């Protein structure tokens, strides 16, 4: 086998290998860890992005671990939706690592913790990539666990009381949810005898009627647990504290990428394990998807309204992430392929947008010692670049033209209109209007809000913080233009999954 045949599995092996060596390197020369992690992240990104031309909607790349065929061995499958998210994940991880160069050195105390911070960033990359491309339900839950626990460590690395408490709280939530996932997997395995996602779908289809209730219970348990993990509104109580207490990249990681992973797991459940073409549990799947969609509508609107009541900028961004989750899940739970593709595109757009908001907020409030909104009055005139980054991200979040948020939201709305789902579509407009108003007030405050309250001795953020944030902001616009190339492929991939071809 040539090396290119092993390409899919390298996505998992390369970041894991870099992560394993990182702490050893850190024990020798602490400053090398940053460069090592950056090399690892760039290598992973190169491997992921070089797949872009090779994966087509009809022809995902597959890889059999140990050359065992699916019912016996594990299989890796890189399909278009997974690749789209994987490209975003690897790109954002590079940004996080560059952003951390000065930020982590200034905020992590004692500095002997820095090697572990970079190790965890590489581990969380490995966890997320493995999670996106695995074809096995048990691997899915193990890698979700790896991702969440590594994210927990990344938040706790600053060692402040708030960060420790919120990450411990998150750890309890994750651990309890994992037990739920194990139970659901066990239920499903007990009536099918397999853990491979595609085999599961086939065996659920050919299932004896006495076993069907068990499969339905497993589906509801999966959706319930993953919705909590995705911070879907009533179950989003753990997210804001976690997002505001860590470093800026840590906050961005938990509220954009980790949450997007859980949403993607729901997509996997609804379109690979329990695809729409199953006749045996068709009614149960429809009811589950419809209720998930309505909770998504609620989360989108409530998240946007909650944004209006926040007095702290980071907390406001955390609630915008909660709102975004609602939008993603409302798309994924819809019945039209275009709406589902719109939900997935929203997951990618949301990951980039929320990251940009967090990093822009970090640059904007650098050295200020506060993220309280009333202290930011007039700061935009003092720090125009940072304010511009936040503004671009806000426009993308609200879904204004020329941004990736617009492309994703348009696709989602088109899908909803195709099926005549006008009520959810109307709520999307309502939520968007609220979010737009909140961000308009913020931008107005930044630029026109009277005399800046800060003194002149305030130093601007270092270039290693401004540049990554600016790159993400630029990518929001660039992806908005490029999305017209990717969207047909995502729609076609979702359609073929929905029809079982």
């Amino acid at each position: 086998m040539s090396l290119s045949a092993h390409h899919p599995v390298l996505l998992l092996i390369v970041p894991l290998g870099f992560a394993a060596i990182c702490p050893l390197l850190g024990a020798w020369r602490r400053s090398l860890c940053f460069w090592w992690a950056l090399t690892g992240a760039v290598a992973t990104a190169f491997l992921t992005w070089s797949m872009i031309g090779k994966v087509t909607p009809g022809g995902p790349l597959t890889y059999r671990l140990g050359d065992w065929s699916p019912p016996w061995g594990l299989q890796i499958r890189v399909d278009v939706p997974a690749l789209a998210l994987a490209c975003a994940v690897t790109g954002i991880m590079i940004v996080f690592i560059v952003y951390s160069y000065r930020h982590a050195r200034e905020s992590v105390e004692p500095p002997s913790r820095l090697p572990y911070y970079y190790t965890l960033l590489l581990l969380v990359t490995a966890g997320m990539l493995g999670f996106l491309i695995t074809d096995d339900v048990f691997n899915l839950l193990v890698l979700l666990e790896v991702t969440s626990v590594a994210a927990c460590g990344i938040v706790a690395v600053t060692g402040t009381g708030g960060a420790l408490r919120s990450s411990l709280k998150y750890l309890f939530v994750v651990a309890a949810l994992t037990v739920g996932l194990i139970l659901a997997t066990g239920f499903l395995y007990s009536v099918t005898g397999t853990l491979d996602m595609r085999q599961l779908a086939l065996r659920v289809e050919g299932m004896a009627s006495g076993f069907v209730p068990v499969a339905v219970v497993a589906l509801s348990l999966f959706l319930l647990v993953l919705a909590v993990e995705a911070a879907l509104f009533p179950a989003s109580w753990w997210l804001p504290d976690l997002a505001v207490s860590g470093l800026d990249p840590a906050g961005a990681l938990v509220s954009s990428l980790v949450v997007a992973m859980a949403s993607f797991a729901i997509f996997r459940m609804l379109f690979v394990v329990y695809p729409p073409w199953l006749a045996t549990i068709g009614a149960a799947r429809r009811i589950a998807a419809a209720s998930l969609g309505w909770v998504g509508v609620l989360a989108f609107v409530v998240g946007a309204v909650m944004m209006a009541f926040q007095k702290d900028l980071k907390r406001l961004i955390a609630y915008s992430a909660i709102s975004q989750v609602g939008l993603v899940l409302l798309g994924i739970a819809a019945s039209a392929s275009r709406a589902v593709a719109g939900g997935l595109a929203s997951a990618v757009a949301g990951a980039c947008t929320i990251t940009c908001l967090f990093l822009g907020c970090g640059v904007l409030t650098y050295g200020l010692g506060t993220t309280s909104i009333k202290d930011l009055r007039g700061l935009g005139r003092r720090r125009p670049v940072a304010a511009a980054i936040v503004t671009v991200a806000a426009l993308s979040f609200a879904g204004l033209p020329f941004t990736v948020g617009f492309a994703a939201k348009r696709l989602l709305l088109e899908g909803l209109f195709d099926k005549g789902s006008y009520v959810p579509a109307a709520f999307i407009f309502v939520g968007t209007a609220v979010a737009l108003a909140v961000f308009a007030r913020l931008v107005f405050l930044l630029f026109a809000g009277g005399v800046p309250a800060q003194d002149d001795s305030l130093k601007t953020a270092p270039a290693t913080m401004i540049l990554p944030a600016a790159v993400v902001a630029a990518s929001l616009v660039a992806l908005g233009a490029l999305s017209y190339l990717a969207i047909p492929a995502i729609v076609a991939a979702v359609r073929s999954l929905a029809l079982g071809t």
Partner: protein
Amino acid sequence: MSHSRFLLNLNYAVAVLIILIGLYAVITRRSGVKKVIGLIIMQSGASLFLVAMGLVGSGATRVATPGFRAATLINPVPHTLVLICMMMSAGITALALSLTLTIHARNRKQPAEERPAAVGQSQEKAAEEGVAES
């Protein structure tokens, strides 16, 4: 018939009961260490559920020899899953305990009035404080 069916499913019922006991502890206890213990109980329940699922026939385990009938042996896959669950459980327990201890040590260093109501604070300690303050 229904009697034997109840006995056949008893192990699953017990496993779920153990998970619920653990969940109760995680939700209701204020002390971090007790929450971790609840978590371990939950994870044990999940492991028990998986092991119980793998039982086939008399539950024989042996090395495959020529002419053996696979249908009479236990299913090895759930046992593999339990191994992985145990590793995850060990990792999570270690992380949760270290976080709890760090929070506890930090709280002890601060004077009592600045101390926030912490997850890692044991109930006894909170009670002692109440006495000291009054």
